[in-house]
């Protein structure tokens, strides 16, 4: 058990016991050893279910949006106590965006920020474990102390280990914000932010010709089944009614899952995430059809940074990138 | 091999539109004639059944057929403006073409009602599906097959009452007891004053049964459930058919129970969001019951056995 895990439990226990939070959102052991899963607890007795491991990939911010949408029952005084939540650096930036957009008042959330070196990709983990003959419950030790994230498991009595580089989520390899900025309490030591190419995922695409890119995306957009999971897991997709689902007064985007409508959906979503996507990578992780959504959103983030020196979720006082302008903004339209 | 396209509607033309009530949630009655002669002839429905109406380009919705099968050559639908399709229908004109498919659902078991006294209790737009039944019962061909008929109908204000002319006709008949009411309190802008509801005496809300009934009066100011208490139909050899907003139904049923009606004597209709109408698309289920196929007509007894999710 890691020290961070102990601290999370301690804090959660205290918060719940003192009634300072309405409930506490964190991570629990998942259905197999490749994955952790979210848990929401009300009872201080349950804090032992909370864990902290390199498998805590979910962005729990999505539940905050749920919370804000809840309407109190008629005649009932709404419980406006904050919600306790465990956040990695990226998730915390998501909460900052929600503050910025007046979706979530600061006093409604109690953020436990954790500096994070990156999380393990459950699929990679599974693949590597399989390759090394490890079963789905054979990984018993996930060490995230200090620099190394080591996974150790046992296959037929022999210890097998594989290092973090093999299993890290792609988005974590490109992350340059390891430390949460906005939080009520922080657990763990500050981590030096690495110098990596944060837009590495789109470099290859940028080097392609127009035709090659068109071809690349064509196959991908055709594959989408429009299950909408990408927008349901996204904490930034909080609209009551999504523009692509709206039927009144007209339907902008047909429900038909053909290339044209799928592309419409994904590009509109990309536009709506400009300066808002904090690259938690949840959409890409959950997509059953392996659509490289980050390759769209990272491009948008890059442009926002290049053109308007704006990066999502860094400063809650700043106006969102499309809600403001400078007279001397780049102008290609003269 | 079945090659019939179950989802393809037949074309039908709107031949008449009557405005029943105005306002944001206005009610209109559409008289619809199926274009194809063969299809029209074969479209036979049971009172209480439904049909899918299409406005091409907008979508499709299911509606109770509000005309009885005894009216040949056309169908009527009384429709309140609430959603996409109903709004589009309300904007249509006489001569416009819509799509229709059906009839769907179980309808009322008319054979079981034969020889029995029939009590119809409709609240608001809930009168629409009942109309297909009482008009069937009151039709010259079938009137003799049924016993006494009591018709109770209420709406918010006199202006909200549908089928006004028809009720005037029914009122003149002596083989049916018609009782109507308007909500005693609410006009569209709140309280209505006495003058606006002239000729609609108030029923004592605390104890409706004690209200003195002036000779020949059958217009009241009260809620439908209270009117049921006043009219106090006997449960003996009777069936009660009720339809309306859930809250009205709830109290109507309570009052019927007080009068001694058993659960299998009380029929009501359920509704749910539907897309296909033929038990495929999945959304209209209450437990293992598909409302579109097994309903919309259920007895109180059946409803009590369901998972309470409607």
């Amino acid at each position: 058990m890691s020290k961070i895990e102990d601290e999370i439990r301690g804090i959660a226990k205290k918060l719940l016991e003192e009634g300072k939070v309405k409930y506490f959102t964190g991570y629990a052991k998942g259905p197999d050893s490749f994955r952790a899963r979210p848990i929401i607890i009300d009872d201080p007795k349950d804090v032992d279910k909370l864990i902290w491991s390199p498998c805590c990939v979910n962005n729990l911010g999505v539940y905050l949006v749920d919370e804000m949408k809840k309407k109190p029952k008629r005649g009932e005084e709404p419980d406006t106590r904050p919600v306790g939540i465990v956040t990695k650096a990226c998730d915390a930036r998501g909460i900052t965006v929600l503050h910025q957009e007046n979706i979530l008042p600061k006093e409604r959330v109690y953020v436990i920020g954790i500096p994070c070196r990156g999380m393990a990709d459950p699929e990679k983990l599974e693949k590597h474990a399989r390759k090394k003959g490890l079963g789905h419950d054979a990984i018993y030790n996930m060490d995230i102390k200090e620099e190394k994230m080591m996974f150790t498991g046992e296959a037929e009595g022999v210890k097998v280990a594989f290092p973090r580089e093999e299993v890290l989520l792609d988005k974590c390899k490109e992350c340059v914000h390891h430390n949460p900025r906005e939080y009520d309490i922080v657990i763990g030591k500050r981590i030096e932010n690495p110098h990596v190419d944060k837009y590495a995922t789109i470099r290859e695409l940028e080097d392609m010709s127009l035709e090659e890119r068109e071809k690349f995306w064509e196959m991908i957009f055709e594959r989408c089944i429009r299950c909408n999971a990408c927008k349901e897991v996204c904490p930034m997709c909080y609209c009551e009614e999504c523009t692509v689902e709206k039927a009144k007064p007209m339907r902008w985007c047909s429900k038909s899952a053909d290339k044209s409508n799928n592309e419409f959906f994904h590009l509109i979503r990309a536009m709506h995430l400009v300066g808002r996507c904090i690259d938690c990578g949840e959409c890409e992780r959950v997509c059953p059809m392996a659509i490289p959504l980050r390759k769209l959103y990272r491009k948008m983030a890059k442009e926002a940074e290049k053109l308007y020196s704006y990066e999502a979720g860094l400063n809650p006082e700043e106006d969102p990138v499309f809600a403001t302008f400078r007279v001397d903004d780049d102008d290609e339209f003269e | 091999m079945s090659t019939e396209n179950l989802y393809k509607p037949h074309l039908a033309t709107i031949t008449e539109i009557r405005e029943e009530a105005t306002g944001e949630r206005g009610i209109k009655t559409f008289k619809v004639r199926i274009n194809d002669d063969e299809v029209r002839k074969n479209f036979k429905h049971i009172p209480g059944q439904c049909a899918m109406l299409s406005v091409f380009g907008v979508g499709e919705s299911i509606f109770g057929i509000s005309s009885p099968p005894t009216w040949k050559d056309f169908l009527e639908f009384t429709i309140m403006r609430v959603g996409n399709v109903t709004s589009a229908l309300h904007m249509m004109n006489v001569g416009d073409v819509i799509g229709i498919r059906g009839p769907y659902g179980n309808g009322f078991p008319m054979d079981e009602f034969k020889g029995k006294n029939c009590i119809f209790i409709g609240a608001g737009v809930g009168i629409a599906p009942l109309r297909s039944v009482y008009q069937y019962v009151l039709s010259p061909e079938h009137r003799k097959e049924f016993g006494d008929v009591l018709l109770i109908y209420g709406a918010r204000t006199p202006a909200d009452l549908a089928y006004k002319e028809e009720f005037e006709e029914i009122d003149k008949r002596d083989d049916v007891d018609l009782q109507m009411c308007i909500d005693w309190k609410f006009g569209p802008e709140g309280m209505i004053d006495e003058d606006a509801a002239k000729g609609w005496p108030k029923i004592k809300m605390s104890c409706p049964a004690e209200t003195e009934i002036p000779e020949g009066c059958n217009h009241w100011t009260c809620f439908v459930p209270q009117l049921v208490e006043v009219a106090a139909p006997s449960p003996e050899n009777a069936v009660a058919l009720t339809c309306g907003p859930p809250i009205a139904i709830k109290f109507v049923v309570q009052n019927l129970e007080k009068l001694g009606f058993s659960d299998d004597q009380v029929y009501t209709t359920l509704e749910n969001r539907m897309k296909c109408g033929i038990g495929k698309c999945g959304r209209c289920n209450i437990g293992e019951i598909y409302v579109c196929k097994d309903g919309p007509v259920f007895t109180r007894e059946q409803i009590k056995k369901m998972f309470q999710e409607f």
Partner: protein
Amino acid sequence: MDDMIIKKDKLPKWSSELSDYKIFAPHREDDVVIFKEMKNVNKVVLHYANSVMPPKEIFFPQTQELFKYEKSPEMKVSEAELPLEKVLLFGVRPCDARSFLIMDKLFYWDYEDHLYKQARDNTVIIGLTCTSPHHNCFCTSVGGKPYSNEGLDVLMTDLGDRYYVEVLTEKGEDVIRKPDELFSKPTDKDRKERGEIWEKAESEVTKNVEVEGVHDKLGELFESKYWDEKSRTCVGCGICSFLCPTCHCFDITDEDCGNCGRRIRTWDTCMIPEYTVHASGYNPRPGKKNRLKNRVFHKFRYFPDRFDAIACVGCGRCISKCPVGIDIVETLEEVKEVEEVEE
């Protein structure tokens, strides 16, 4: 027809004999295995735990045209194109094959769905024994087997360098082309080997749940607080139902382009509020708990009540792909354990 053996290197030849069929087979695209029309036999992958998308889309496509309409010069409605070509569905896992029988019940009861039926009738299904089940597979708990032949026309079992081929139906006989040249008779050794592989596969399905009693227990749990608790972390994404081989709900919408358009049906999911909301704004299943509950109830109580079959084949997709780790097997186990406290 008697059982047969086909050498793996004869597969391309066999497939070329079947040019009158449109062949759908599992392909790997990026990291996902999906059923696609086969253009090149070398691109087919047969070593996979299970395809991400079940092959239900062959019979019940994500998007299907119901009819076309034209508003001018006069209103006209014209038939949708029927899926008429002969289809060969190759490499289907036994669990997915069983799902077709479950879908049949729904699409054939009372009114027959002509689009589904047409596609179904035109299709020959060749199954492939599941030799390395995934750790989330639990087919044996819901009446399946990794080598079940239910719903299949042909079942093949991988014996290393060759396949053991069982022809199960008349439709299946039609795809056995050039039997003398391409196929041979199985030996006792082949049979024994197949038996061993079957046994091994079955023993590898380790996830299991006793579904006996779940139906009745669910009946007691309709109002249970358990569902509030269970659905708390559900994000309502709908992946579980989109990837489910037996989920069959659909939405019908119009795709309008001014003077003409078409009506389409598209997959829908009971996990979103829009699924049941009435035009009036009232929603009989307003919360996540109602929706999650409905899904479990539908699979293990409503569907069995109506059609006498559990609407789950134990493919494990909803477990593997749930973003928040909701596990149907675990849910069922919990359901059996829940004790209702009277209040």
